[in-house]
């Protein structure tokens, strides 16, 4: 018995090696396998290559993404066209605290080296603070001009995060600063409400600084002075966020989320869902088809009638309505997809099964009094396994697109990040209208690339298994 098993294993090994030898001949098949391993590698390396490792749990959490710029383009766009300010945190500060008993004077400054064509989206002063605080922030520009940008009183009984935007909070003062240099025409066109204050702050003090300023490069000194009134008033850990025009490999969306992190986190879900749906549904379909073929006659007729009813169900619409009503988790969605998609390979497998049934070794098995299930699983199913693999490979892309389509409508599992979810956000956030291409292209490109990967593998297998397709 043991000997029997080992020879069987040898045989399997031999046939796998043979298959691989043939598979190697198909170039795009190899490309597919290579791409597959790239995706696997990306899944394994996920925690090391994404800047926001908590993306999986906190994709929908606004606080997690708060310090990112909104709608920032990818960093590499700087190689084409204008050089846009990058995202930076400036923590280095010469903090000086004078304790005057009932009040503290806290002074400090940040140095920002501005060397771009386009200014950052905003400068945000952040600190932990408590008590009665009067904060003044001024900016000392490279041309020696000093602008007091923000002056604000903050009162808070408990400790909290202070966040002051120089762009919004300083719009009026910066407008007034620019007024001294700007032409009458431009002054009429812009008001303190619609002036782009960062253009003014980082532009040369000359005519046109509201409209299209010449960038004033150099070191900017952002001075802050805080008067903390009251004994337990305090300010800790001040830092400056330079909110970049560009951010990360794939930029950010309207909710400040890093798209690169989201897309990379989506790989594993696409792979998992695609593979599981493909494997389960093809297995069910294969067993169904073979069983119908093996028994034939009335069983076959009944099974085929049931199959025909299933064939008449439009799958994606049913899935959409089911998802709209039951708002399923990813696992329930997977189950529903398996329940609908098993019918795919049935017809092909059944017609193969009808041929296999007539083979002499099946007759021999009958003569040896083998049970039905033994004949089906031991003698017939192994014959169609190669075909099943090809069928599975081609079903993976379909499953991924289906999940993405359901998610696109906003019916997906919102607790995880999938490519469809990201595209749903893009669709709802008006990415197409606003031209935020970095929000739309990467997730879809990943869907398409993963589909292509499995298509390469599946078509290559198909070519080997279908000698008729061979080029003469």
């Amino acid at each position: 018995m043991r000997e029997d098993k080992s020879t069987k294993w040898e045989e399997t090994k031999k046939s796998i090696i043979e298959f691989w030898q043939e598979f190697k001949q198909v170039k795009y098949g190899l490309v597919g396998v290579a791409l597959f391993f790239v995706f696997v590698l990306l899944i394994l390396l996920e925690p090391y290559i994404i800047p926001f490792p908590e993306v999986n749990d906190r994709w929908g959490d606004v606080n997690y993404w708060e310090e990112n710029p909104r709608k920032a383009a990818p960093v590499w766009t700087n190689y084409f066209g204008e050089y846009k300010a990058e995202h930076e945190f400036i923590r280095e500060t010469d903090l000086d605290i004078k304790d005057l008993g009932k009040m503290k004077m806290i002074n400090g400054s940040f140095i920002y080296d501005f060397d771009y064509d386009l200014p950052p989206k905003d400068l945000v002063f952040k600190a932990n603070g408590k008590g009665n605080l009067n904060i003044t922030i001024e900016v000392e520009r490279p041309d020696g001009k000093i602008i007091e940008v923000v002056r604000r009183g903050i009162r808070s009984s408990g400790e909290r995060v202070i966040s002051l935007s120089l762009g919004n909070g300083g719009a009026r003062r910066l407008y007034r600063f620019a007024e001294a240099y700007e032409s009458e025409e431009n002054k009429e066109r812009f008001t303190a409400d619609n002036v782009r204050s960062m253009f003014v702050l980082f532009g040369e003090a000359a005519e046109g600084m509201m409209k299209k300023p010449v960038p004033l490069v150099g070191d900017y000194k952002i001075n802050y002075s805080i008067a903390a009134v009251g004994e337990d008033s305090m300010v800790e850990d001040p830092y400056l966020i330079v909110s970049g025009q560009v951010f990360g490999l794939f930029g950010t969306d309207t909710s400040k989320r890093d798209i690169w992190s989201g897309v990379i986190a989506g790989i594993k879900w696409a792979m998992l869902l695609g593979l599981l749906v493909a494997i389960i549904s093809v297995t069910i379909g294969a067993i169904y088809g073979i069983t119908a073929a093996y028994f034939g006659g009335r069983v076959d007729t009944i099974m085929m009638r049931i199959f025909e009813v299933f064939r008449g169900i439009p799958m994606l619409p049913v899935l959409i309505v089911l998802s709209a009503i039951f708002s399923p988790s990813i696992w329930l969605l997977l189950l529903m997809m398996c329940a609908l998609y098993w019918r795919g390979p049935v017809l092909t497998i059944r017609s193969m099964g009808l041929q296999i049934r007539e083979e002499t070794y099946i007759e021999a098995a009958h003569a040896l009094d083998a049970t039905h299930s033994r004949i089906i699983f031991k003698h017939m199913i192994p014959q169609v396994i190669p075909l099943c693999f090809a069928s599975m490979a081609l079903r993976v892309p379909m499953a991924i697109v289906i999940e993405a389509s359901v998610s696109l409508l906003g019916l997906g599992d919102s607790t995880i990040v999938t490519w469809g979810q990201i595209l749903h956000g893009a669709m709802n956030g008006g990415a197409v209208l606003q031209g935020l291409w970095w929000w739309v292209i990467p997730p879809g490109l990943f869907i398409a690339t993963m589909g292509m990967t499995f298509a390469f593998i599946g078509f290559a297998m198909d070519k080997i298994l279908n000698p008729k397709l061979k080029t003469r």
Partner: protein
Amino acid sequence: MFGRYIVKRVFFMLLSFVIIIFLYSAIFNVVMDQTLRSQIHEMVQGEIMGMTDSTPQEIQIYREQRIQTLYARYHLEDPTLQRIFWRAVGILKLDWGQASMLTSSNGSRDVFKIVVEKIYPTLLLFGIFAILDVTIGVLLGMKKAQKPGSKLDQSTSIMTMVVFGMPSWWLAMIFIMIFVYTIPIFPSGGMGSVPPPEGFAAIIDTIYHMALPILTLLCIGFWARAYMTRNIVVGTLQEDFIMSARARGLPEKKVLYGHGLRAAAPPIVTMGVMSLLMSIQGRLIFEGIFNWPGMGNLYWIAVQQNDIPVLLGLLATTTFVYLAGLAFLDVIYGFLDPRIKVGGKQ
């Protein structure tokens, strides 16, 4: 003989439809009951608002009686199985109830009216797409089959695989960004301009609005059609009668289009109808990106409004269109290839 075959196909199609409707009715029983109950309560509340000169007691009695009659009319008090049965019968009798939010173009809240007016745009869009898809696909496929293994054959086969898993709606989003907002040559969506032009201009206007959606679908679609045609024709070209035709010295063009294509016609026609059906069942939501006022767009709107009755009506319609397509497919297949005896004795 053929007539009997058609009748049989249509009968089985209708039977499948009835069974599927019963399945839907069973799956969506609970949620439909809830919707119907809340609709009844809303309606009765509305009636009571108009009864200004009644005592509170009268109103209370009226409310209870009215709700009871309405519950009885819609079989809401019956046991589950009977409710499933009556709902399925209702759907089959085209009594699809009232929408919770949406209305048809002339303001009716009848789900049937809302859904039915969306069939034409969908069939128009996907029908024209399928015709172009099959024409281009078959022509390219024949070219591919002429010289299997050539540069053209290989490169177009690779293209088939490249676009294999590409969602059509994603490409639509990209194309809209490029061809509507960056280089404005196409309208952003919809089926016609506002105000609608008249006469011949109206047709031009519709074609203009249809151009980008169809272009998008074609970019993904015809490669697969060409690939399948190629495989079928390459298989046919290995048959003996082709060899004999070649041996007789017939020109290669005639061998290919006269003998090869004719023999390969049944599967190719199947493929064309399948292309339309697959688009209808798999690419419907594509319409939503272009605001094309068809069934796919209605899926989007109904999902957003959470309008369950409309969703179910849509589902019944989609299923019917899909099943009718499948039956049609079987019928022409039987017509083109008399060897096919579906359900016949072996």
